[in-house]
Each structure stands twice: as structure tokens, then as C-alpha cells.
């Protein structure tokens, strides 16, 4: 297994895809087998990713490791090239961790799906999403990335449209068309990139393109194509409106997959593609992007406060959080970008926990409306406790990794865009409001009539959410574990855009803290 030639990434991507086919072919009537098989496959993927992480050379985290290269369409410079750096590794870990969680949490949700949709199909689609996402994060060829970027929409479309709530087809179509619109712009840019780049058999490799000097005007246009696609995916204000619909209509497991992992493609794309491929254009667009991000932070939080639907509320908090993530990326400081990368992880976990718990609440109550709950804490204290923990993580309470990431983003931004950082800091007050208001309305107060019969979390539900919370806490206490992997990759990104950290006005004279 330690063979350096072993195609780790291909295998990690292929296992869930093969598993997906296997799960789909489980005959009707054997739903349990399909579920077990799906969870088993996702755990195998997790084990593989852990093995990958163990072998990952942290000192060289800035460079791509476990690289694979095969020609695909050499005439157009397209190749099948995989590799991970620190940032991609973090996201791979996110995918691998959240998939089994989602599958476990969706155990019984799908049987209640309307119509005669097969349980097998749902689990197979989830595995398909996982497999494609692995490819998205591991691709080092722009064209391959694009293909997978679009491909992942298909299983997700069916997850939302096939297994979602009452408005599912509206939400699914909106999600698909919105994303495809971005994808179209990106396709144009991908082609343009090849034309403007050096071309040749490896003309789509990131390594080829990152060094290419493209003239500024072209760069800007190409950048816009990529950026809008990523901004839709992320989603940045004001391109966010598909998210609340899609996330609230999708089944909870699917919503986690969508918001927790799939949307990270957007922010991952910004840091891994937009910046290194179009350094000048990124710096050119920076002020506008920063403004959008800050607006998103405040706007998302304010709108979240006003939501009446549990799932939509969580979706809008994500809009706010994605604002933070993109802000950190475009602040172009090591703190900002490392914070953003860590934020992707934290946001994935905390949103996952929130969505899953909200899903469990909704499944018990049969409604997603906040007003339909009340006093859940009395009848289901564990559920309420975990919900509070997830919420606290979402509002970036110290001790959770989201706090570290949010703080790093703000600290990184302040040096470059002081006003933006100050305004964004107001987001932490609003975050407290939206989480605590929903906690107060749902969990505290007198026990509502319809809530009285609630049973607390089943062991399966507990074990699907508890690990996520535990990870959030662990990374909150010792974030350096993740930052060690992220930092070199972030430094490389910053080098590519030729941006250094702002220097402090009055550098402290004492030696670096590590000496003590």
C-alpha cells in the first residue's frame, strides 16, 4: 500500500462510483442491504483518505502530491491529471468525513419519500456525488476539473428533485439552471484559457497554466468567467437565491452534501483556480469582490434572522459564512486564506450538524416552520444540546474551529481592507442573533403540544452527528493540526498572486512566540 506509484486518488474517486453502481443494482426489497453497502463504501473511502493523509508529506504541502498523469485528449491538451496539495487534502477529508455522516443520517428519511422512489437510488446518488467531488478536488487539469464540476450537478439534481420536499422540482431546476449558467461562463473561460495559454499536450494542466503570462485584458475576461461560476456555486451575494430553495427542499442528507461539501467547490475554485491562474485579474477584481463578500456577510445574517423556515435559515447563515470564506481568500493574506480554508472545513461540519439536526427535528414534527416548535429542550435534551453546540459553532464561539477560522479571516482582512473587516466583524453579533433566536424559539419556552411526543435522538442519529461536533471541538482547540497542512499551500497561492502579508506598523521586538 505504500507503493508510491499506487494511484491513490483514482482509487479514492473510483471506489464510491463503483459502490454507487453496486448500491443501485441492489434489488427492490433489500433496502437495508443497500444502506449498509453504501455506508460501508463511504467508510472505505474514509479509511483510504485517512491513509492518504497519513502518507501526506506536510513539509511539502505546497506542492501536489500523489500525482497521476495520463493523456486524455492530447490534441486539445486535455489530460487526466490528479494530485492534492494541502488545501485539496483538507477538502478531500471534508468529503470523506461528511459522506458517511450524511448516509447514516439519511437512514430513514428516504423511505418516507413520496412516490415509489427507490432507497437504493438515493444512496447510490449520494455515493456518486462523493466520487465526483473527490475528482473535483483532486483534479489538476483545468478541463478535467470543469467536466467534473458540471458532472456533479447531475446526481445532486436528482437527489433534490427526486427525494426533496414539496417544492422539490422548482428547487432542483433552479439549482441546476443557475449552476449550469455559471458552468457555461466557465466553459467559455476554460476554452479561452487554453487558447490564451501555451497550449500543447499538457495545455490544460494547472502547472502549465499557472506560469503562463496572459495579457491583462484577456485575464480579466477569463477570470470573470471562472469567478462568476464559483460565485454562483459558493454562493456569493447576490447570486445566492438558489441556495435557500435547494437546501430547504433537499432531504437533509442531500442538503448537507450540497451546502456542506458541494458548495465548497466555489470557494475552493476561487483559491485554487482563480487566484493562481489569473493573478493580475484577481488583484484587479479584489475590491469589488471584497465588497460583495462583506455585503453577503451582513445581508445573509440579517435575512437569516427573518426566516420562518428552519432549513432556509441555515441556508442563509451559509450565505453569510461563504461571504467570510471568500473575504479571506480575496484579502490575499496568509491569515485570511488559511482561515478561509479552515473555514471551509468548519463550515462544512457545523452546517452539516445543523442541517442534520434540523432534519431530525423536521422529521419528528413533520414541519420545518420554526413557529411549529417550542420547548424541545425539555423532551429531547440531547437533540437540543447538540443543536446548541452546532449553532454555537456556527456563530463562531471560541473553542470551535469556526471561531479560529473566522478570526483568522478577519485578522487577515483587517491589514488589507480595514473597513471591510470592521463591517464584517458586525456579522458576529448578527450570528449570535440568528442562532440564539432560533434556539430560543425551537428549544426553550413551554413545550408545544405537537412537540410533546418527541423522542430523543436514536443512537444512529446521535452517532451520525456527535463525531462532527467532536471534530469541530478538536479543531477548535488545536487548529494548528489542520493549519500545518494548509499553510504551505496557501503560501504558494499567495506567491502566485505575488501578494505578501502587510507588515505590522510597530513589529514587536521580542522573538517569535515559538521560541518560548
Amino acid at each position, binding site marked *: 500500500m505504500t507503493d508510491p506509484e499506487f494511484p491513490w486518488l483514482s482509487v479514492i474517486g473510483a471506489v464510491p462510483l463503483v459502490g454507487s453502481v453496486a448500491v443501485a443494482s441492489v434489488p427492490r426489497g433489500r433496502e437495508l442491504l443497500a444502506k449498509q453497502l453504501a455506508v460501508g463504501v463511504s467508510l472505505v473511502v474514509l479509511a483510504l483518505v485517512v491513509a492518504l493523509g497519513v502518507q501526506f508529506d506536510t513539509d511539502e504541502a505546497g506542492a501536489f502530491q500523489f500525482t497521476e498523469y495520463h493523456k486524455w485528449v492530447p490534441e486539445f491538451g486535455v489530460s487526466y491529471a490528479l494530485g492534492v496539495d494541502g488545501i485539496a487534502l483538507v477538502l478531500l477529508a471534508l468529503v470523506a468525513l461528511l459522506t458517511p455522516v450524511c448516509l447514516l443520517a439519511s437512514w430513514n428519511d428516504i423511505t418516507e419519500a413520496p412516490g415509489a422512489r427507490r432507497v437504493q437510488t438515493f444512496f447510490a446518488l449520494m455515493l456518486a456525488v462523493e466520487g465526483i467531488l473527490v475528482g473535483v478536488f483532486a483534479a489538476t487539469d483545468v478541463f478535467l476539473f470543469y467536466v467534473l464540476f458540471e458532472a456533479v450537478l447531475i446526481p445532486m439534481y436528482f437527489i433534490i428533485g427526486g427525494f426533496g420536499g414539496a417544492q422539490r422540482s422548482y428547487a432542483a431546476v433552479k439549482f441546476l*439552471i443557475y449552476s449550469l449558467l455559471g458552468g457555461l461562463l466557465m466553459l467559455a473561460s476554460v476554452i479561452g484559457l487554453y487558447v490564451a495559454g501555451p497550449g500543447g499536450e499538457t495545455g490544460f494542466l494547472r502547472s502549465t497554466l499557472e506560469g503562463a503570462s496572459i495579457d491583462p485584458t484577456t485575464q480579466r475576461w477569463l477570470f470573470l468567467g471562472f469567478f462568476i461560476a464559483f460565485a454562483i456555486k459558493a454562493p456569493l*451575494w447576490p447570486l*445566492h*437565491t438558489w441556495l435557500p430553495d435547494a437546501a430547504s427542499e433537499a432531504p437533509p442528507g442531500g442538503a448537507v452534501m450540497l451546502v456542506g461539501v458541494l458548495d465548497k467547490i466555489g470557494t475552493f475554485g476561487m483559491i485554487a483556480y482563480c487566484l493562481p491562474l489569473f493573478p493580475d485579474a484577481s488583484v484587479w477584481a479584489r475590491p469589488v469582490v471584497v465588497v460583495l463578500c462583506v455585503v453577503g456577510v451582513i*445581508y445573509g445574517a*440579517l*435575512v437569516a*434572522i*427573518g*426566516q420562518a423556515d428552519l432549513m432556509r435559515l441555515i441556508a442563509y447563515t451559509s450565505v453569510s459564512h461563504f461571504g467570510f470564506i471568500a473575504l479571506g481568500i480575496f484579502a490575499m493574506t*496568509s*491569515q485570511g486564506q*488559511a482561515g478561509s480554508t479552515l473555514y471551509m472545513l468548519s463550515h462544512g461540519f457545523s452546517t452539516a450538524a445543523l442541517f442534520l439536526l434540523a432534519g431530525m427535528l423536521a422529521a419528528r414534527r413533520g414541519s420545518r416552520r420554526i413557529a411549529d416548535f417550542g*420547548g424541545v*429542550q425539555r423532551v429531547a435534551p440531547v437533540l437540543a*444540546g447538540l443543536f446548541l453546540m452546532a449553532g*454555537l459553532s456556527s456563530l463562531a*464561539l*471560541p*473553542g470551535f474551529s469556526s*471561531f*479560529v477560522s473566522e*478570526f483568522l479571516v*478577519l*485578522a487577515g482582512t*483587517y491589514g488589507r481592507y480595514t473597513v471591510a*473587516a*470592521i463591517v464584517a*466583524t458586525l456579522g*458576529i*453579533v448578527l450570528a*449570535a*442573533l440568528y442562532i*440564539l*433566536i432560533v434556539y*430560543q424559539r425551537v*428549544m*426553550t*419556552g*413551554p*413545550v408545544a403540544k405537537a412537540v410533546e411526543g418527541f423522542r430523543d435522538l436514536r443512537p444512529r442519529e446521535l452517532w451520525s452527528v456527535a463525531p462532527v461536533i467532536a471534530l469541530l471541538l478538536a479543531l477548535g*482547540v*488545536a*487548529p*494548528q493540526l489542520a*493549519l500545518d497542512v494548509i*499553510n504551505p499551500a*496557501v503560501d504558494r497561492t499567495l506567491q502566485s498572486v505575488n501578494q505578501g*502579508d502587510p*507588515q*505590522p*506598523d*510597530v*513589529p*514587536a*521586538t*521580542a522573538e517569535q*512566540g*515559538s521560541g*518560548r
Partner: protein
Amino acid sequence: MSFPYAPVLAAAEPASVAQASGTADLTWLLLAFPIAGAAVLLLGGRRTDRFGHLLGTLASAASFVVALVLWLDMAGRDVEERATIQKLWTAIDVGRFHVDIALQLDQLSMAFVLLITGVGTLIHIYSIGYMAHDPDRRRFFAYLNLFVAAMLLLVLGSDYFVVYIGWEGVGLASYLLIGFWGRNPAYATAAKKAFVANRVGDVGMSLAIILMFTTFGATDFVRVHAAAAGAGEGTLTAIGLLLLLAACGKSAQLPLQSWLGDAMAGPTPVSALIHAATMVTAGVYLIVRSGPIFDLAPTAQLVVAIVGAATLVFGAVIGLAKDDIKKALAASTMSQIGYMVLAAGLGPAGYAVAIFHLLTHGFFKAGLFLGAGSVMHAMNDTTDMRRFGGLRTAMPVTFVTFGLGYLAIIGFPLLSGFWSKDKIIETAFHEGGVEGWTLGVVALLGAGITAFYMTRVMVMTFFGPRRWAEDAHPHEAPAVMTAPMVLLALGSVFLGGILAYGGMLQDWLEPVVGGHGEEEGVTTLSPIVVTLLTLLVVAGGAAAAYLQYGRREVPVVAPVGSPATIAARNDLYQDAFNEAVLMRPGQYLTRSLVYADNRGVDGAVNGLAALIGGTSGRLRRLQTGFVRSYALSMLGGAALVVGALLLVRI
């Protein structure tokens, strides 16, 4: 103003804050016990219900023991070697941003550690009795342990970032405990209000730390304080004001004071520990700890003093009209912390005094709250003082301990409060100039009002005729509750004297907060005069209250009262103000944004879709289904192509 601290550090930093070794290595244990306690109780669930309260108390007591050991060890060392730092692990290392999870145990933190673990343990013990009948007692102790751990982290952190972690940790514990009886919607709202108000303060904290980072490239005390001298005054003022904002949130100072009264929704031990003795004083700690920054930013310092003075009066005035015993005490807490903040705003001269008052206040206010808890416990959780009266015979122990606490807070000679409050007023006058006079007079006035409202509380509760509800059968609390009250009462009586004896506390704190007596302000009034004046004012206040409430009948239902009374009863309209200025517009903004998002942003998206759909609906009509129409357009196309080809050829 002298600034003895930073240059020394810059020159010989390692000597000043030594790496922990020997006994000081145990610092981490202080935190480990309560964290472990909280973790076991929270994760263990119902299984730990039987022994949860004992385990929680044990964890706190163990911490206290460790604190005592550490204290003895520290006291045994030379003054220069007392401060130690124990680095646990590196939390963050990104670019220049480097944060170690490290515990700095110096004289200042030591004082706090002893207060927190000591008073904390007493309150744990008290709670065993107080919460005996609550089905969720285990959870309560888990939260208490969590609070102790977070508070210890707050005072032990060697880095503003670590302090921030503890800072939010205590906020969380406070939130959980205020909302402990969250089935009452008002309590849950109070909890949320406290957390949000604290969060506003946290914005200040965040920005202050970030500003330190961008200015100095560091956030730990040692390096920041050492480099502070090199920064511009504007920056330092900004940092100072941001830290003040943080302190206002946590310590319920103007303008973020409104949450403290509502926070009394929590169980009374919580009010005693968190909302009187420890957490709410964190702001004072922060300001004192950041002394080197404030010393270089006189504007910020002045604002601190003004905020303190304003809150002092504000709280006291509210205290005058409150009929709820806990709310009256909460108002008093606000006011007393105003004293501390005022002192902290007076520069190095005031830091030690602020801490002094903080410590004594911790004892007597905790004692008062526990007494109030005992009364409520006896009176079926009634808090309305108009339904009390004449309890001194029913509850002698409570009466005595509460009475001692009362005497301490109004500054009865030789009791704890006398020493510390007197010092503050004295220091304020000492400042000289218009500021000094104003602050001094305000502080003096505050002492008088304090005497008035505390006497009112005392008289209405323990003296006069019995105005009890029908079903009230007051009885003395069990020993597990009275014992802590007695201990705290002893502290209220003697602590001040001990600490003041020969300037003991000031000497102890001097290496951290700077010198005291030598500080020569303008001698305006000699200490004796100030003391006498204070006593006079206090006596006047107390006498007035006695005349008002001791001699006359206290109506069971509150009379309408003058406009001033109504205003004070309504917390001087602070909630109304917040509601009108923040909440209503906020709700309106939120609602309109939701509308705008649905109709505007999403409307644009859906509108675009509808436009495309509509256009294609029109275009669809071209598909008549008539083959010949299609053939026509095909021929047209062919003609166009031929024509185009011809054109190109020409």
C-alpha cells in the same frame, strides 16, 4: 504618568515572566479539573445524576486546592520570579500570526484565580442545597464547572486571543445558566439578551486583538505591552476604546448594561458567582491587564473613568426603585463595577484599587446574593421585597450574614467595603483638576445612594412587619447553604482589612500593575477628609432610607410613584431605548431585507427566468405544426445561404 512596565520588559523580558517550572507546572491543573468535571457531567448524561453535584463541587474544590498550592509557591519566591508562563501547545501559527495556548500565572491572575476558585467552590457547595430539588441539578453543576474553567482561562491566558477564548467561554456559561430555566420564555429571552449584549462587546474584543495584530504583529501580553510604546497614540486609543467596549459588554457598563438586570433570571447561585463576583468583573480585569496600553492612551483612559462613573450613578439610581431583591442587587453590582471601572480608568494609581474593590466586592456581593437566594428559597422563590419584612427572626443566620454583607457594601468602617471603596473615592479626588473633582464627587454621591438603596433592601427584607404571602413559611436554609454564606460573610468583614493592611494587596500587585502611593497627583483633599466625607454621606443615605422604609408602612403593592421612580423602576428606560433604537429598526430592516431578497434578488432571478420563458412562449407560436410553414423557412434559409455564398464569392 509614569510607565514603569514596558521598558523593563523590553530589556529583560524572560526575567519578568519566567517559563513555568517546578510547582508552577501545575498551572494547567487549575483548568483541567473543572473541564474534566464539566465533560464528565455533560457527556455522562443521566448516569451521573446521582453524584453529579458532588463531582462538580469536587472539581472546583480541587482547583481551589491547586490554586492555594500555587499561591503559596508564588509567595515563596522573589518578587521578580513570581510571574510564570506555562506554554501548553501552539494553537495557531499562520504567517506572522502566532498564538500559543499558554497560561500566565502572575500576581494579578493569582488574585483572580483564588477569588474564582474560592468563591466558586463556596457557591458550588451552596448550590448543592439550593438546587437540591431541581431535576436538572447535574446539568447545573456541569455548567458551573464549565464557567469556572472558562473564567480561569480568561484570567490565566497569556495572550489576548486566549483571553478571548475564556471571555466567550464565560459568556456561554452565563448564557446557559441564565437560561437554565428556559421553559419560562422570559428567562430564555434574558439569556439571549445577555449573550447578544456580550457579543456586541466581543466585536470590540475581536477588533482590538486584530488591531494589535496588525499593529504589533503579536497578540500576547508580553510582546504587545513591550511594543506599545512604539505605536501612535491614535492606534493605542483605538485599541483602548475597543477593549473598553469589550469590558462594557462583559461588565454591564454603559451603554451595554441592560442585560444584567434580566440576567437575574438565572438561579441565584449563578447570580452570585457569575453576575456578581467573577464574570462581570472580567472587564475590570481586562482594563487592568491592558494597563500598559491605557497608560499610553490618556483619552481612552478618561473615557474608561467616565463610563465607570456614569454607570456607577446609573446603577445606583436603578437600585433605588427596584422591588425585586435580585434586581436591586444586580443594579448594585452594576454600580459597584462602575466604581471598579472608574478606578481602573484612573491609571496605575487606580489599578490596584480597582482589583482591591473587585476582590472585596466579590465576597460581599456573593454573600448578599447567597443571602437573597436563601430568602427566596424560604419564601417560595418570591423575589418581591414588598412581600418580605420581618425575616430577621425567621432566618437569623441569613439575617446576620446578609447584614454583614450589607454593612460591607455601604462601607461601614473597618469592614471590607470601607477600605476598598474609600480608596477609590480617594484616588478619584487625588486625580485633581476638573476630572478629579467631578469623578470624586460622583463617586462620593454614589456611595450615598448605595447606602440608601442597600438600607432599603435590608429594611424591607428583614425589618418591619411581615408582609408575607399566605402560603409562606420561612425557615432557615440547611447548613450546606448557610456555611458558604457564613464564610463569605467572614470575608466581607475581614478581607478588606487584611488586604489593606500596610498596602498588602498593592504591594503584591505592583509588579504587574505598577506603583501606587508614590503617584503624586494634586493633593486636593487629604485622605482623612475624604474618609470622613464618605462616612457622612453614607450615614446620610442610610438614615434617609431608614426614615423612608423603616419608619413608614411599606405598601405591598408598589405605589405609582414619581416620574423619577417610574423611570428608575424601568431601568431608566434602557430597554425601551434599545428597543426603539436597535430592535425595532433591526426587525424592520430584517423584514424588509427578507422581502427584498424574495422579491428583489430572487425576483430578479425568477424574473429573468420568466422573461426567457415568456419569450420562448412567444417564439413557440412559430411552431405552427404546418409542414409547409417549416418548408418555407427551410427554403428561406437555403436562399439565404446561397445568397451569402454568392456575396462572399463576389
